[in-house]
């Protein structure tokens, strides 16, 4: 059963449509990743889902209660982490946590036990006296998440929590999300990183306020039309010019290799023949799996 449901949501600002009839649902114990370009409407969607901004039409319900009428009852169920760092830089780790606990009426022994659990969980223990402003990027985000968790919400809405965080800290952050998932939380997380998207139970690609595609990571990978081949050759300007001359395929540079997009109606053998005709007969070619990023680019370009 879905814990959070967004139904045909519309949000306009001064004639600009930020969220354009968007629907989605999140079940308990599931992580849904929302990926989309800057300005796709992710932040507006998330704010509306938390009841932080009004919307023009549609509805958002949490546990069957609409944010339009039942915000008082919903608020204790929700945890929200905005995109920008929202903690008090001059307060210590512990003081920030205590402040957020106070907002939700969490105090005394209950606060103490949750605090200890969150410290263990996040690895913040050694830094409790440190001012939040002096934490590393990864630690800041773990503190912000801890603050959003202090009232033990069952729905978590996280707006790009790992943007600007290094890969190791991002992995640790996702370890925490996975354990929240096991505890039955419903999590919506926006991220620009396709490696994170691949870890989610469901993925929504969002563009121009609308849903571009939705499914499990595997389902989305299967949406890719055509194939990608890797040519393990240094992509010099000269080679790229030659490859661009091959009809029906689209070569592009990828770091120290060349990747070649091949349309669905062309076989690998046909590609090999055309490469040979252009003098690349001996070049090492292998087919590679299209990633979520490739799918995303293809869907966006088709718009």
């Amino acid at each position: 059963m879905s814990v959070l449901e967004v139904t045909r949501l519309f949000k306009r600002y001064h004639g600009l449509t930020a969220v354009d009839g968007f629907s989605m649902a999140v079940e308990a114990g599931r992580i849904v990743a929302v990926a989309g370009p800057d300005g796709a409407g992710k932040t507006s969607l998330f704010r509306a889902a938390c009841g932080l901004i009004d919307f023009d039409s549609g509805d958002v319900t949490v546990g069957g209660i609409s944010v339009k009428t039942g915000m008082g009852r919903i608020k204790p169920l929700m945890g929200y982490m905005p995109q920008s760092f929202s903690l008090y830089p001059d307060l210590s780790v512990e003081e920030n946590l205590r402040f957020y606990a106070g907002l939700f009426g969490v105090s005394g022994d209950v606060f103490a036990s949750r605090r200890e659990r969150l410290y263990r969980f996040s690895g913040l223990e050694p830094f409790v006296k440190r001012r939040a402003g002096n934490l590393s990027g990864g630690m800041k985000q773990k503190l912000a998440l801890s603050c959003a968790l202090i009232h033990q919400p069952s729905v978590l809405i996280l707006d790009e929590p790992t943007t600007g965080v290094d890969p190791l800290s991002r992995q640790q952050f996702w370890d925490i999300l996975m354990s929240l998932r096991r505890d039955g939380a419903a999590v919506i997380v926006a991220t620009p990183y396709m490696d994170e998207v691949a870890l989610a139970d469901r993925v929504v690609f969002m563009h121009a306020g609308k849903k571009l595609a939705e499914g499990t990571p595997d389902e989305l990978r299967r949406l890719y039309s055509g194939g990608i081949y890797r040519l393990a050759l240094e992509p010099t300007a000269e080679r790229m010019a030659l490859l661009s001359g091959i009809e029906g395929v689209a070569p592009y540079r990828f770091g120290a290799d060349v990747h070649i997009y091949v349309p669905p109606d062309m076989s690998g053998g046909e590609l090999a023949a055309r490469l040979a005709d252009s003098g690349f007969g001996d070049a090492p070619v292998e087919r590679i799996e299209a990633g979520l990023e490739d799918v995303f680019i293809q869907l966006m370009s088709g718009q």
Partner: protein
Amino acid sequence: MMDYAVVIDGLSKKFGAFAAVDGISLKVEYGEIFGFLGANGAGKTTAIRMLCGLLQPTSGTGTVNGFDINREYEKIKPSIGYMSQKFSLYGDLTGRENLQFYGTVYGLRGGRLKGRIAELVDGLSLDEFIDRPTGALPVGWRQRIALAAAILHRPRIVFLDEPTGGVDPVFRRRFWEILYRLADDGTNLFVTTHYMDEAEFCSRISIMHRGKIVVVGRPRELVASRGLRNLQETFISLISEQGTDG
């Protein structure tokens, strides 16, 4: 003798007892897109500040664009380009006005400046949005204008600080197509980033940890040498085995 864009040998920077950069050595060629990687706090920023002539090394030697980083650092600054995601364009000004402003900073004016801007508008495909106020443009477009500003004076080395980190893949690929063209013309692009999806587009990378360079090589070869699936996993496994600071 090989003409290197960046050569450093045993470069260190200490702040008191703390070695932010601890004896790094590196050779980077013109025409190469070099990814300078590391976790937050690994010492990348300090290293880059030394390479740009903004900070004096505690020890070690090196040249950037042929200038000695210990003695000729004042000459390094005007010879390089620098662009970061936080690069400040004036939001109320159009892209063209921004380029005119930065052009005068670099001592370009009149017909020469106009011609150079026209060349960049064409080369970086800016025509669609160059005459709109930059404040209202999507990030991906602003970045292209910021890059144009960084290369107005035709530097042979451009330092790019997380140029497309956190940007959507469509914008990112277009931006990198432009970087590849610059590299073809012999420019060295020195990219600092901790985004592995950016690093994968580099021809060679180094990974820095606790002030030291722990590995240098081509992205695919580094991944293969550790038998892992991608650069992300490779980075994490390399850093984890070095130990973390939390």
